[in-house]
């Protein structure tokens, strides 16, 4: 088996793997299976998941709620795993943001001022791109902790999966907004903000959303100013880290035309942005039935309704679908000719236990 049919390389060597792709294609399952493969290769690995399906979360021992935000060891791996360790956690955007604020502020008092602000409480989970950015932020936290050989991050499902790559730049863009700058640079009291753009902004917020939110907003932006240099530097570090030799991206898709279209778009963006790209996993592929010979096909034409007609119709339907899926995959494989492309069949049941993940892991490393 050649390197181009497996992810054995990055599983053995990479320090960071980011899985991305359209929704509903088994991205989280793939991230978990890459984690299982790395643990079986003797590495200490942590998988950061976003919104996993309930049964997969159960398989990884992740409980619902805040407790899942801390790494949790997956203990039921097969005996032949050796020294490797698999840990998992569920991303919680709000508590990752809190952690970032605590880390970046000079004192606990300063941190509390931000964390207790009602505007901060409301936006920390929902700021544009916050989930995407926090996935990357968590990756950075875990990577720099030095506790892990490999950090695997599953990204939020997104129609615009590209948001993830732009998230650090978007945060910097937000912090560079002229209104934000004038609000935070001037140390005068709110009543004396004389800059026209800033005062108009505050006036608009007051008129639209009422006076009490204005003070919270100003206070929030002011306190954010204390941590801004840190945030800005962090965003730049993350941007460099994602393009370093330590990191690599895996695109996950299904063979449906819409998913393939999004995957192609994502591959283009990875290449344009100079991000390291390990390859593509095409998941959920329907099996191709054995063909009917032309003679048999002729003999089976024009059957009356009945069980054999059901068999022939089903055979035709599955063949047609499997054929069109293979055409879509060919188009994608052409685009990804210099990287790994691993094709995974549709399983009779969704992967929901460690045993299923081990099976997937073997296919991702080319052991099966």
């Amino acid at each position, binding site marked *: 088996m050649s390197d181009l049919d497996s992810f054995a390389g990055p599983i053995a060597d990479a320090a960071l793997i980011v899985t991305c792709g*359209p*929704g509903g294609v088994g991205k989280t399952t793939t991230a978990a299976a890459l984690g299982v493969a790395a643990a079986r290769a003797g590495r200490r690995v942590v998988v950061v998941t976003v*919104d996993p*399906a309930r*049964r997969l979360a159960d398989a990884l021992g992740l409980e619902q709620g805040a407790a899942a935000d801390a790494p949790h060891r997956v203990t039921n791996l097969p005996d032949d795993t050796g020294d490797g360790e698999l840990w998992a956690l569920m991303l919680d955007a709000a508590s990752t943001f809190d952690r970032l604020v605590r880390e970046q502020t000079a004192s606990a008092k300063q941190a509390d001022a931000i964390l207790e602000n*009602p505007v901060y409480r*409301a*936006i920390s989970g*929902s*700021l*544009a791109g916050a989930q995407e950015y926090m996935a990357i932020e968590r990756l950075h936290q875990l990577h720099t902790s030095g506790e892990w050989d490999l950090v695997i991050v599953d990204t*939020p*499902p997104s*129609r615009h999966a590209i948001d993830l790559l732009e998230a650090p730049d978007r945060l910097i863009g937000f912090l560079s*907004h002229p*209104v*934000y700058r004038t609000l935070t640079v001037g140390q005068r009291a709110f009543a004396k903000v004389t800059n026209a*753009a800033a005062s*108009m902004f505050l*006036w*608009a*917020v*007051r*008129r*639209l*959303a*009422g*006076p*009490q*939110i204005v003070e919270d907003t100003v206070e929030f932006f002011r306190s954010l100013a204390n941590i801004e240099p840190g945030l800005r530097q962090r965003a730049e570090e993350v941007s460099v880290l994602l393009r370093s030799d330590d990191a690599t991206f895996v695109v996950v898709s*299904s063979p*449906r035309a*819409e*998913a393939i279209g999004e995957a192609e778009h994502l591959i283009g963006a990875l290449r344009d942005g100079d991000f390291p790209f390990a390859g593509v996993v095409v998941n959920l592929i*329907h*099996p191709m*039935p*054995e063909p*009917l*010979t032309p*003679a*048999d096909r002729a*003999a089976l034409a024009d059957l009356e309704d*009945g*069980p*054999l*007609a*059901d*068999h*022939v*119709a*089903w*055979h035709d*339907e*599955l*063949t*047609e*679908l499997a054929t*069109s899926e293979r055409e879509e995959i060919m188009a994608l494989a052409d685009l990804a000719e210099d990287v790994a492309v691993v094709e995974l069949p549709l399983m*009779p049941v969704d992967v929901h236990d460690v045993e299923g993940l081990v099976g997937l892991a073997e296919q991702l490393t080319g052991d099966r």
Partner: protein
Amino acid sequence: MAVVAGKGGVGSSTVAAAFALAAAREGADVLFVAVDGRPGMGPLLGGRELDANDRILRRLKGAGQVRGRTIPADQAFGDYLELKGVGGMLRRAASAASLPMIAAATPGLEHLLVLGKIKELEREGAADLIIVDAPPAGHAAPFLRSATGLSDVVQSGPVRDQAVEVDAMLRDPARCLAMIVALPEETPVTEAIGLADELRGEIGLGLLPFVVNSCWSDRPGLAKSPAMAARSHKVTLTPAAKQALASSAGFGRERLERQRHQIDRIRTELGLPMARLPRLATPRLTIHDLGTLADALAEPLLEPGP
């Protein structure tokens, strides 16, 4: 107004388009609104790519028509300010350039502005039926929840008024209903049941029949082996034909059994009428395919509700 919602990848945009076509066939003047539309919805309905202008996509002979548009948040914002008689300075201050800042300070505001604009269209009777293709993935519930959520942070002012009015529309089944779309597979069904509970409970939305998209046609004959099946047709199969048919039958039995199981789950856990849309073998849909889906969708929608 009807909101069509489902997790990413279940085809809810396509179902919304089929719904628009089905209603237009019954004579309705339908407005299709894409909130975070995937490209290609305008052409699929037979017109141009959607933009912020309300355009006719398709006229049906002797029946209704389908119009389509998008609603960008910044435009909804401007329209709203104008409607409230907010002029000059404030409108400039609140222009598109500072919308991201204001939106950051008031979470959910962009969603609320878009819902508010839809509410205005509904109130002025812009169409017989407004079909809203809701944002995908995990975003449908936050989108619809924006009105309720904002009132916790904002306690006065026009934004509060807007939130209250949108909330009233969503809770009134005579004005607004939601259609939930899922695939007949375990994870999507689990998520759709969760979404249904959330929309009904937390937001107070009334629900239309539940749509199960991409259903395989049932093939009861697969329960027999190919040889047994051939016997009841008084046909003898060659060994090669037997093997070819057997190679697809095993997978088919498993697949169809799982589909039946998931459809039963929806029936018992939700207690909603259901529309089953056929799985279409073509990877890229045409307007003809959309007609097939509209036929399947129309059936339970035209029946009187329970």
